[in-house]
């Protein structure tokens, strides 16, 4: 039986109190995810992605609002929620070092009361998929962080959850492994109708390529939530330029922001040159920007008009780029 919503939150709040300060990590998050969706959370470090996942997986209590997973309240029906979920977080090297890969995985099937034979068969299949088959008998302490992460991903899928939470699952993985993981996640959803995946990422491209819908989150609030195409379509009336210039001063950026019709400008400083992303209402405004460049004694190295990306959507909503907000987070 499928519930109407795989995930539903209303005005979800969470504050962290430390000795120095009280921090509002989530400030009124409303979500509605349908069974069968691959739902993405895109946001910089510190946006509140992990906090949301922790509340939805019953690891953390909300400070306010409600959250339901697979129709069950995370606060009052935590046990029921746990029967339907699993979770994998990336960028960590967890696992019992003295156990083999197979033993680590088998152990977790037993917490779910799975039949050993069924469990072992599934372990074999997934080890094969993730290219770990020859490591089944290797002690986990001998595995690299990347391989441990693959094992962890297998652990998440092993129990065939209705809702699978992937918290930055490709963080720290090499390109090849990250691709395998993405491809299989998509495949798993396509071959198991009704299964739901909630994935967090701060890689714009991952959200764009993989997710059915994306919520852009920053500072504990959801700024926009739609399919990647629709999100980008919201910028269709605008034009997006990428410029490489000699290093520019902050005064230049301020001057450009003053120009009418400039939606946003963001800067990524490189070696000897800056990369600027420019969102304009209209092509016709570009000359004004270029003349400001000259006024500030900076030179244009290259200029390219391109399709808007989710990154542009983020910049347009937040006012600065994903990587910039990470630097300040």
């Amino acid at each position, binding site marked *: 039986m499928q519930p109407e919503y795989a995930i539903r939150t209303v005005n979800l709040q969470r504050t962290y109190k430390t000795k120095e300060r009280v921090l509002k990590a989530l400030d009124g998050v409303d979500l509605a995810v349908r069974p069968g969706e691959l739902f993405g959370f895109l946001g910089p470090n510190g946006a509140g992605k992990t906090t949301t996942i922790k509340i939805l997986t019953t690891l*953390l209590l909300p400070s306010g609002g409600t959250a339901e997973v697979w129709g069950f309240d995370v606060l009052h029906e935590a046990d029921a929620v746990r029967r339907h979920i699993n979770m994998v977080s990336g960028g960590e090297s967890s696992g019992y070092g003295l156990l083999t890969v197979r033993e680590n995985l088998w152990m977790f099937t037993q917490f779910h009361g799975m039949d050993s034979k069924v469990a072992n068969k599934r372990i074999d299949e997934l080890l094969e998929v993730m290219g770990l088959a020859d490591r089944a008998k290797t002690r986990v302490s001998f595995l690299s962080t990347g391989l441990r992460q693959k094992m962890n991903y297998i652990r998440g899928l092993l129990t065939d959850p209705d809702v699978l939470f992937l918290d930055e699952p490709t963080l720290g993985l090499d390109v090849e492994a990250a691709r395998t993981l993405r491809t299989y996640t998509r495949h798993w959803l396509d071959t198991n109708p009704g299964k739901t995946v909630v994935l967090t990422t701060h890689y714009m491209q991952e959200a764009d390529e993989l997710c059915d819908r994306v919520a852009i989150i920053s500072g504990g609030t959801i700024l926009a939530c739609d399919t990647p195409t629709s999100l980008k379509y919201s910028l269709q009336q605008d034009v997006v330029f990428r410029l490489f210039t000699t290093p520019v001063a902050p005064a230049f950026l301020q001057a450009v922001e003053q120009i009418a019709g400039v939606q946003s400008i963001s800067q990524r400083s490189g070696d000897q040159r800056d990369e600027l992303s420019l969102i304009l209402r209209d092509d016709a405004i570009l000359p004004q920007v270029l003349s400001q460049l000259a006024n500030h004694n900076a030179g244009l190295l290259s200029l390219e008009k391109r399709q808007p990306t989710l990154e542009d959507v983020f910049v347009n909503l937040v006012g600065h780029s994903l990587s910039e907000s990470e630097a300040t987070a």
Partner: protein
Amino acid sequence: MQRFWQAFRVGAWLGWKTESNWTNPLFYILWSLLLPMSNGLIMTMMLRVLQRTGNASGADLLPYVFIGTVVYSIVALLLDSMAWAVLEDRERMGMLKYIAITPSSMYGYLWGRGFAKVSINFLAVPLTLTFGALVLDIPIRLSTIDWPLLLVVSLLGLLIVTFAAQILAGVTLMIARHAGFVGQAVSGALYLFTGALFPITVLPNWMQVITRAVPLTYWLEGMRRALWVDAQNPVYNTGLNQLSTSNLLLILLGSAIAMAVISIPLQRRAEHRAKEKGLLDMNTAY
């Protein structure tokens, strides 16, 4: 209940897998003997020196000290085992959160880890007692052991320590940092306050009061009575010889029930607090 046993089995399995990595049964026996035996020997030496230099009431306290120390070695292991499992899983392995999100029972799992710890080290107790009887002339004879009493007292005692261990695990779950000391500190303190090392009559008054309030004091006394015919002889001035064995059993039973009544809601409370504070996954440095 089914969830409890499921989780118990996994916990016990994991404990055995990770803590008993001997390939050779000979190592196992040596390991089982070495630690409690060296403890027992140190105690014996100390006692002999003290008795030579200090007064001589004439009574040889060696059996008292020896049995107390050996039995206490199991107490120390079990008492710390669940708190240790919480710490290890949470901080070193990063796995506690993955266990917490399964629909299984955290108690069951922790009891399993505790059971593994005791069962791995259990052989040490009879082996060391045998060593004591044969080499140190401790008056433990197979023919004079009160087997039914031994069984009942052992079970009640282990139950009490298990619940105590669960309380310590709960406390550890609620503490963010430096939680490692909890189990150690308590098992260290109890060493003094259970009459394991010396009769409680040698303690100052206020310490005696505490010692008499600690259920484990009665457990050790019960074990001595089961193993050693002369345990209740007034010459040893243990301070407990007036207590009848049936009352001692009642105290143990009452304590076991009381510990259960305290520890079960406390564990639930601890899990709730940990979720409130976000302590189930602690690999981040806040």
